[in-house]
C-alpha cells in the first residue's frame, strides 16, 4: 500500500515534468492550424521540421549553437580546472577570493551585456561566433570554477603527495593523477557549462546577428507581428532539447556522482 502511494506520487511528479515536453513534441508534429486543438494527435506531419530547415535557416542556428556551446566549454574548462584546483589546494586569496568568484554570478546578466557590446563593437567581435564563444566562456568560468573547486577538494591530497614523492612535478601530479581522478566531476561540469551556453539568449541576441544567431534567438524570432508560429517553435524546442537529452543519457551517472561528489565533503 505504502509502495503504491509512493509510486502514485512519483507518477504525478513525472507527469508534471514530462507532460509539457510531450505536449511540445505533439504540437511540433501537427499542422500549424491544429496546434491548439484539444485532440491529442489530430494529424501527423513533419512539415514544421521541414519548414524550420528550409525557410528559417534553423540548420545554421543549430550549428552555431553547437559551435558556440562546445567552443565555450573547450575554452572555459582548462581555465576552470586550473583555477578551481588552485582555490581547492592552495591558500589562494582565502575565503574572500572564493566568494568573490561566486559573487560575480550575482550580477544580472544585462548589467554586463551592454558594456560587453560596447567593447565588442570596438574590437570588432560583434556578430561573430568567436566573440560569443569567448563571452560564454567568461560568463561560465566562475560557476565552473566554483563547481570544480568542490570536486578537487574531494580528491585526497595524499594522492598528489604520493605522486610527487613518486617522481612527478606538481603539474605532473595534477595532470596525471588529479585530473583523471576528478574526471566524473569535470565531465559533469563540462555538461553544465554546455547547457548554460546552449540555453543562453540575452548575449546571443545583443552580440549576435543574423549570421551568428543561435537556437534560442532563432526560436524567439518565430514570435512575429503576425503571431507566434507555435508549431514551428515546438519543432525548434524539440530539436533544441535533443542534444541535452543525448548528453544526459550518456553522462547521467557522472552528473549525479559529480554533483554529490563535492557536496558531502
Amino acid at each position: 500500500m505504502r509502495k503504491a502511494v509512493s509510486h502514485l506520487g512519483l507518477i504525478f511528479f513525472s507527469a508534471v515534468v514530462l507532460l509539457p515536453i510531450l505536449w511540445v513534441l505533439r504540437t511540433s508534429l501537427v499542422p500549424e492550424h491544429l496546434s491548439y486543438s484539444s485532440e491529442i494527435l489530430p494529424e501527423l506531419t513533419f512539415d514544421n521540421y521541414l519548414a524550420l530547415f528550409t525557410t528559417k535557416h534553423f540548420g545554421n542556428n543549430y550549428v552555431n549553437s553547437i559551435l558556440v556551446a562546445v567552443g565555450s566549454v573547450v575554452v572555459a574548462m582548462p581555465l576552470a580546472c586550473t583555477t578551481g584546483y588552485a582555490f581547492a589546494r592552495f591558500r589562494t586569496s582565502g575565503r574572500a577570493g572564493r566568494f568573490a568568484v561566486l559573487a560575480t554570478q550575482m550580477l544580472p546578466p544585462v548589467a554586463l551585456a551592454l558594456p560587453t557590446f560596447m567593447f565588442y563593437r570596438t574590437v570588432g567581435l560583434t556578430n561573430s561566433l568567436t566573440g560569443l564563444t569567448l563571452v560564454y566562456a567568461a560568463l561560465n568560468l566562475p560557476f565552473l570554477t566554483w563547481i570544480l573547486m568542490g570536486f578537487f577538494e574531494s580528491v585526497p591530497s595524499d594522492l598528489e603527495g604520493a605522486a610527487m614523492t613518486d617522481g612527478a612535478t606538481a603539474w605532473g601530479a595534477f595532470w596525471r593523477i588529479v585530473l583523471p581522478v576528478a574526471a566524473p566531476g569535470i565531465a559533469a561540469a563540462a555538461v553544465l557549462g554546455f547547457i548554460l551556453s546552449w540555453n543562453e539568449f540575452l548575449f546571443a541576441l545583443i552580440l549576435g546577428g543574423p549570421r551568428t544567431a543561435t537556437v534560442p534567438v532563432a526560436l524567439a524570432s518565430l514570435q512575429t507581428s503576425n503571431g507566434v508560429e507555435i508549431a514551428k517553435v515546438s519543432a525548434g524546442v524539440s530539436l533544441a532539447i535533443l542534444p541535452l537529452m543525448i548528453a544526459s543519457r550518456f553522462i547521467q551517472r557522472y552528473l549525479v556522482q559529480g554533483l554529490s561528489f563535492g557536496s558531502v565533503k
Partner: protein
Amino acid sequence: MASIQLQTVSKAFGSNVYGVRDVDLTIEDGEFICFLGPSGCGKSTTLRMIAGLEDVTSGSILIGDKDMTRVAPRDRNVAVVFQSYALYPHMTVRQNMEFGLKMRGLEPARRDERIDTVSEILGLTPYLNRKPAALSGGQRQRVALGRAMVREPDVFLMDEPLSNLDAKLRAEMRLELIKLHRRLGRTTIFVTHDQVEAMTMGDRICIMRDGHLVQVGKPLEVYANPVDTFVAQFLASPAMNLLDAELLDDTDGGKVVVSAFGRFPLSPTQAKAYEAARGRKLLVGLRPEDIHEEAGPDRVAFHAEIVAVEALGTENIVVFTVAGREYTARLGRHYIPAVGTAVPLHADPRQLHLFDAETTRAYPRPSFEPHSGKEV
C-alpha cells in the same frame, strides 16, 4: 641508504601557530624509528617535511648528509606510505607500482623485473591487473607498500599505515613490516599513535607532544625511564597511575615515599637517586602491571574498592578507587574481584617512578634491568 638529520626544524602555520618546533634528531642509516604521539602532536607534519610535502619554516633537513630542506619531493629519493594508502584509483595495481619507476625513466624491462619481484614478496602477483577498488583493505595496504618498495628508495616514510586495518591484520602486518625492514635494511620512519606498534617495531621511538620532541630512546629504555608524566602515561595502555606523594625520612634512617597507596620504603640506591626530590611536591607513578593481587616480599599492601573489571581472557584490567580517586591494575587472568568489594592489592616499591608535581619531570631512576626489574 641514508641517515637523516633534523636540525632545529620548525613548522609554523600562520604567524604564531607552530605545528613542529625546534626538533633536533639524528636517525641512523638503516634505523627503524617510530614517531609516537597523540593526534596533532606534529609527528605527521615532521614526516611530511622530511618527504618535502610540507615547507620547513626554519631549520634544516639532511638526508644522507645532503641538505634537502628546499629540495622537491621527487628529488629526495624517499617513498611515503600514507595512512589512506593514496593508491591511484584509476590505475591497476601494476600501474600504481609502475608509476614511480616510469617517472624516474626506468626501462620497461627493469620496471617489470622490479614489480614482479616485489609482487612476489608481498603476495600481490594475482592482483596486478586489478584496480584498488577491487582489493580488500589489507591488499591495498600491501600495494601501497609495494609501490614504495619497487622504487628502492633511500628512506621509507610511513604515516600510520596500519591504522585502517582490523586488529588481526594489523598484528600480521606489523610483523611483516619488521621482517621487511630486516630484509631491506632501509632507513624507516614510522608514524603512529599506537604504543604497541611503537614499542614492538622501532629500534628507537621518538615521543612528540605539542610539536616538541619529548623523548627519544630505545622502546624499553623509554618505558623504564619516561622523562615526564606525559611520556609515562602515553606509552602504555592502561596508562601509568599517578598519585600525590611526599618523600620523607623513615624511622629507620632510610627514605620513604608516602602516598594514598601507603608508605613505600626506598632502597638505598633509590634513596640516593631521588635525593633531589626531598621537600618537593611529588607524583608517584605505578604502572598497572606493577600492582598485584598477591602479597610478596617488599610489596606494599593497600585496600582498593573495585569499580570495574575488564576480563580480557589473558589478563584482567581492574579499575579501583583509593581515597576517592580511580586507578588501574593489570591483574592475573584467574583473579576476578567482584565489583563493589574492597580487596587488598600490593604494589612493588622497586618499580615506582617519581615525578615533580609542578614540572611533571621525572627524577632519574636507578638503573634497572627492564625485564626483571632488578637494580643493577
